[in-house]
């Protein structure tokens, strides 16, 4: 029978330290090598993974049948244009977006985002069949999809590997918005064959810079940070 010298409580035989204050048990009358039966199990439980199989099958059937029916209609009856392409594309897009949520839940978020980017780019490329030129795709749409996917991957990395709070999330979003706006303006300039320069995005950049400086200041001062968190908590 051992007691905690700090708390004065008796400790069950399997405890090597007091759970209340972490003071190690040091009882010379007890053999420390002796294995004591644990009051609580050692094995840690895991929650069952819920498989949304029914929903996944239902979704796949609905989207697949929609795509196939539209394709057949387009091929056999309404043959005037390739109107079924955007619909088939949307079906594929929705199916790929649903994969991490309900079909293959083991897929990491990085890969999910990567595949989402690819499928969005593929969908936009598909739309070029319906337009007279594909220059808009190569000069604006594709770089924009790559930029947005990249920025989302970066935000995801930051959220998963650094502390998440209202303030840090806001900081990441503000920086990303600034980069995205600059990217959009430069791409539009490049597409219009104008010299690359910043106009409206410079205003966004200025505002974002001010917000970023304010957020970094708040984050670096613990008292200020706690005060803001206290007042803005929700």
């Amino acid at each position, binding site marked *: 029978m051992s007691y905690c010298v700090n708390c004065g409580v008796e400790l069950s035989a399997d405890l090597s330290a007091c759970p209340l204050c972490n003071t190690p048990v040091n009882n010379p009358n007890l053999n420390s090598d002796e294995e004591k039966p644990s009051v609580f199990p*050692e094995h840690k439980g895991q929650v069952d993974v819920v498989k949304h199989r029914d929903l996944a099958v239902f979704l796949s059937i609905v989207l697949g049948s929609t795509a196939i029916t539209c394709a057949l209609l387009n091929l056999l009856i309404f043959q005037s244009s390739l109107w079924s392409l955007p619909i088939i594309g949307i079906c594929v897009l929705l199916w790929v977006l649903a994969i991490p949520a309900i079909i293959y839940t083991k897929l990491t978020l990085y890969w999910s985002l990567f595949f989402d980017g690819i499928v969005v780019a593929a969908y936009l490329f598909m739309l070029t069949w319906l337009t007279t030129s594909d220059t808009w795709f190569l000069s604006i749409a594709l770089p924009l999809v790559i930029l947005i996917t990249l920025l989302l991957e970066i935000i995801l990395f930051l959220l998963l590997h650094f502390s998440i709070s209202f303030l840090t999330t806001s900081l990441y979003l503000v920086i990303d918005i600034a980069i995205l706006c600059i990217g959009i303006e430069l791409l539009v300039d490049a597409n219009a064959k104008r010299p690359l320069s910043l106009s409206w995005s410079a205003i966004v950049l200025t505002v974002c810079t001010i917000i970023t400086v304010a957020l970094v200041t708040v984050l670096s001062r613990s008292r200020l940070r706690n005060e803001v968190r206290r007042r803005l908590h929700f």
Partner: protein
Amino acid sequence: MNKNNKSQITEKNDWYKLDLSAIVYPTLQRKDFSSVYRLSVLLKEMIQPEILQQAVDITMKRFPTYKVSMRKGLFWRYFEPNHRPGPFVMEDIQNPCMPMPFKSNNRYLVRIYYYQNRISLEAHHSLGDGSGGMCVLQTLCAVYLRLLGHKIGNGYFVLDVDDAPDPEEFEDAYMKYANALVRPPRPGETAYRIRGTKEPFYTLNIINGIMSVKEVYEVAGRYHATITEYLNSVLLYALLQKQNNEFHLKLRPVKLAMPVNLRRFFPSKTLRNFISMIYPSIDPRLGVYTFEEIITHVNHYMRFFINEKFLRGDITTNAATQRNPLIRVVPLFVKDFVVKSFYSRIQDHNSSAGLTNMGALKVIDDMKPFIERFDIYMGQPFSSRTNCAIASFEDILTINFASSIVETEVERLFFRKLVQDGIHVKIESNRKSEQFL
């Protein structure tokens, strides 16, 4: 028999409505949180899992409201009898009260574990409260002992497994007694909240304090208080000390969320939820409270609020939302969103810790020689804090802390106060020595 019961029986128990309390629990469901509580009984001999499984199969038929799965309607959730295989007994785990996704475990909302000489029942709170769960556990225990060849009768929490379930056991007793003419307002001031380091996913830290009922009774008597009032005061005292030890710009009242078993005041056989919450509190902004002053305050508070009249008013306030026809026709997903945000922004901020006392558990004489003690766990707290549950059997009183934070300051201050008052406390824990601070 009231209208609700009639409708449930005529439906041949094809489905059950959720009771007034049960409506809230599924809306709070998150990937890392379910409102799951655990009741354990420690026997004097090792558990035989095969016999226990047979006992579970026999017992669950007697409790149709515990052999159900959760379903979603357009406006409300409901329970459907679950005819899937199970529930199956499992070897116990280190982290009890794990989240309980509604579609896992063959859609059962109960889990039964065994470990050495302990049988544990974990149930989703939407099925019923601790008293209902205790009926299931004690009946299960009685059936198990009968299968081992012991002669065990029925009585108190042990129901006759050969009897058909009484319709009153399914009733939503809240709606039966929600008939006060006024709806008392709720105090809604934000309470002191424990700040601690959140444990990783699925971790539930447990610290059990085991002591003698006689010793606690004598100490409580010295302060002219009951055991519940005394232990309530000790927890408030510990929380006040913790707040004082921390850096704070503003002091907050320290409040406990304490469920009251309404069966004590309103006759009901229901095995579903029939509890109401009271919030004993101390406001340190009024001055420094001595322990004796805290006990006096808690003593007066409990005598003032725990009576049939106040509790009837409280039930009526709760029932008003469910009775409102405009609220009833709102789709479930909107209700979920509103209830969840109300709970996380207001209700959860309304208390500093949870404390429940099931009191002295009555057990039929036939079973007493086989039982060592009972343990009760309130389960995973919704936000990072600690919950405390108390129960006693014969001369053994157990105080079970369940916490989702690394720090143990509240538990330390609580048990040290008991030791200072001369109570001998034995501690058990699932915490690893390097884990806590």
